């Protein structure tokens, strides 16, 4: 098992460098570069623009830039952002954490609600509860999350029950830690709910489907025939088999932890990575984009690896060696 994990991690290195090269090439062959906005400003002369090009090494060939970037990466440096003139890690450090907090909250909310809901719907197949859940799932699935976010914010502005966006209150510093936690949860509520409603609907349906399939199996019938209680049959025999495909899904979800929330972050004023990366891509702030691609890549690889390992733990039939 551990040998397998090690091998997977070893393969990840060329994969990441490949992602980096591809990003570099794509950023370069699409028209324009970071200095285009400056170029359109009458206050900047050609000489000044040339000076910027030198400063950012944009006048050097693509391959040279790539090699420099890889060299820096080996020293664990991610380069400087053109836009901000500060090292990339200083800009994204805090924001990664913020996005992570929001994504994790949405993730926990999704899984903690969707799995039991799916099971319950499956056990009450075609009864009223199931029908109601499926009906509302349809609505939730077709509601774009940013729209839901807007509605929730409007509701909050009318009732004053929750803060309108942001992550902390202005006087956050003066609270003790329970106060800070409550403050954070209050600010989390709207974006996390807006993010997870759609996923709950989707995941719940998958869970219900899997559960129904397993419940139709012969061994479930056998278990019932042995006189096991309904509870034991469902949770001990059916659930463990039904949840297998979801574990794979979990790995993918992990990789999208840092990238899935951009729109909601913008609407709810959550100080995360989303809008930062959006502007970085649009303004061609290459090293900032590279950093985000790398993080996405690393998370994807780790997420898949974790999913594979978890799968092996959950299902004794799976072996990697």
């Amino acid at each position: 098992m551990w040998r397998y994990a090690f091998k997977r991690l070893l393969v990840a290195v060329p994969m990441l460098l490949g992602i980096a090269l591809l990003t570099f090439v794509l950023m370069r062959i699409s028209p324009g570069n970071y200095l285009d906005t400056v170029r359109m400003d009458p206050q900047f002369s050609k000489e000044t623009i040339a000076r910027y090009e030198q400063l950012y090494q944009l006048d050097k060939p693509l391959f040279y830039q790539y090699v420099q970037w890889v060299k820096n990466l080996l020293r664990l440096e991610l380069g400087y952002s053109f836009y901000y003139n500060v090292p990339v890690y200083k800009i994204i450090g805090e924001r990664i954490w913020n996005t992570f907090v929001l994504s994790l909250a949405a993730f926990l909310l999704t899984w903690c609600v969707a799995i039991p809901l799916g099971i319950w719907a499956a056990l009450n197949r075609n009864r009223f509860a199931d029908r109601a859940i499926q009906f509302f799932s349809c609505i939730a699935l077709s509601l774009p999350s940013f729209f839901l976010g807007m509605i929730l914010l409007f509701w909050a502005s009318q009732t004053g029950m929750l803060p309108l966006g942001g992550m902390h209150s202005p006087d956050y510093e003066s609270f003790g830690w329970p106060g800070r936690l409550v403050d954070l949860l209050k600010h989390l509520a709207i974006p996390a709910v807006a993010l997870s409603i759609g996923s709950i609907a989707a995941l719940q349906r998958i869970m219900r489907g899997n559960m129904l399939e397993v419940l139709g199996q012969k061994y479930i019938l056998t278990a019932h025939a042995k006189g096991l209680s309904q509870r034991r049959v469902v949770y001990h025999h059916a659930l463990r088999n039904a949840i297998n495909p979801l574990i794979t899904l979990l790995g993918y979800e992990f990789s999208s932890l840092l990238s899935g929330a951009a729109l909601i972050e913008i609407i709810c004023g959550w100080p995360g990575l989303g809008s930062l990366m959006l502007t970085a891509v649009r303004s061609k702030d290459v090293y900032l984009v590279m950093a985000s691609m790398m993080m996405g890549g690393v998370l994807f690889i780790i997420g898949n690896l974790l999913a594979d390992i978890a799968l092996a733990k959950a299902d004794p039939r799976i072996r990697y060696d």
Partner: protein
Amino acid sequence: MNPHLCLNPCPKLRPRQHNNNRIRVRGPLTRKSFSLKTVFPLLLSVSFLLPIFYSSASACAAQYGGQLILATTSDPKSFNEITAKETSTSLVTDLIFEGLTTTNAFTTKVEPNLAKSWDISEDGLIWTFHLREDVRWNDGQPFTADDVVFTFNKLIYNPDIPSSARDIFTIDDKTFTVEKVDDHTVRFVLPVKFAPFLRGMGQAILPKHKLEEIVAQGRFNFTWGIDTDPKEIVGTGPFNLVRYDPGQRLVFERNPYYWKKSIEGGPLPYLEKIIYLIVQSTDVGLLKFMEGTLDGYALRGMDYPMIKPLEKKGNFTVYDLGPDMGSQFLFFNQNPGKNPNSGEYFVAPYKLAWFTDREFRKAVAHAIDKQKIIEIVNNKLGYPQSSTMGSAAGFFYNPDVAEYDYDLDKAKTILREAGFVDRDGDGVIEGPRGGRVEFSLYTNAGSTDRVDIASIIRQDLERLGMKVNFRALEFNTLVSQLTSSFQWEAVILGLTGGIEPHFGKNVWMSSGQLHMWYPMQEKPATDWEKRIDEIFTQGVQELDENKRKVLYDEYQRIVAEELPIIYTVLSARLYAVRDKFGNLKPTSYGGVFHNPEELYIKEESR
């Protein structure tokens, strides 16, 4: 507690007149917020006006304390005033830094600021500035001539530091000589006469004692980035940055060392804090304003009908500050050049013949339905633009230029007389020497306003019998086409204007790289472009403002006559402000909060 007049008779303001014609990228979620301008204490005519105001308005007390909470749509990119490249930075630096002179928000005239007076030599080349002696940096250090000399010689003229200030203060590759005469006197020696010099002296001055070592070590380009401890950022302005939470808020506190005094001689500013919340979505910003979190909010035309009726209930007032500085316009490619690699013409020669034909451009100008654009795009809150300097430019604005009313029949007549007729009966007109009048029209996809304007214009052009292929491009793609590949036919874009015409020289002089319809000409392609070159060359050397105005009036007339750029409309600047501030004096040039140090919170709102 400090007694103060409610109506302050004569406030002044300083020039942070940067960008005459900066391209604006306005996406659906971004929006220019009005920058705060700093103000100058009262020097003139106070004694004359005081009795009137005492009698007409009962004196009320300005009080210290309280805060102003506003919103901005994007994070600052840097706190480094010299290397900064865009406006989200000047929002911050305008509160912290000041220049030797300032522009009055009411009259747009240049006035003293950190310099209390100046002398000019007869030939107009030697300027001696006498600095105020009571100015301190916000860390308590005294402000002296050394700081001014340092800012120019070590920062702006430093070859290793790229900045647009260097381009402003360099004339024909020659820099100014800046030297200290004594601790509070600085002398500037100019290579040639330079009319915008005094306004340009609104350039922020930075502290030598904080930055000298950093510059010596070559680290200045990466200094005062957004990761800096706010305490390190030292200026002379009315407020200090005390806190920056990325993506959330900027907090400013009053500078206890601020030199400006109220008219009774008390310290300024009154407000304890200014807070900028970073709210990326304009819709959420509006919700926050309605809810009462924000004290002021820039409205879009579409918000107006919903917000205006709520004024009383919400305890706020909507101010209409008149037309915006930023223009939206249409222009055609008149570049006769060829691609040096492929040998292809940038514009097919038969199309170039139309685009360089003034009658063709006139017909197009008559086909632009400005009223409809104002109605649809600006929600009826806009102004038609004819002159290249918008009316917000004040002194240099020339209202007396050729106007092109919306008249499709007239446009058709002009086209017919110029030889554009539909000869083969396919519904599309042909040029005088043949060829269907079909061209592509681009704008940047990020601006919904421009996309809307383009579709209105396109409809009318098709009524004239032209075939217009419209495409919205990504901003970078459009810029590449305009500045390096030159392969485009017609474009709709916007530039933000200013009050100093000379700062538009890169757009209007034929050698400029932003002379977009035919950039970087070796010698002027037409007589009128030659004349505009002359006007800009003369105008920059003419120190008599009135004689300058005559010159720039002519330039505006020529542009309206020749139509290299066909203007559309200017949107109205609308700003809603909670009714709790004293000394609030919105002006067209300065915006709503141009005098943050004078604002105070009224008694009844406390």
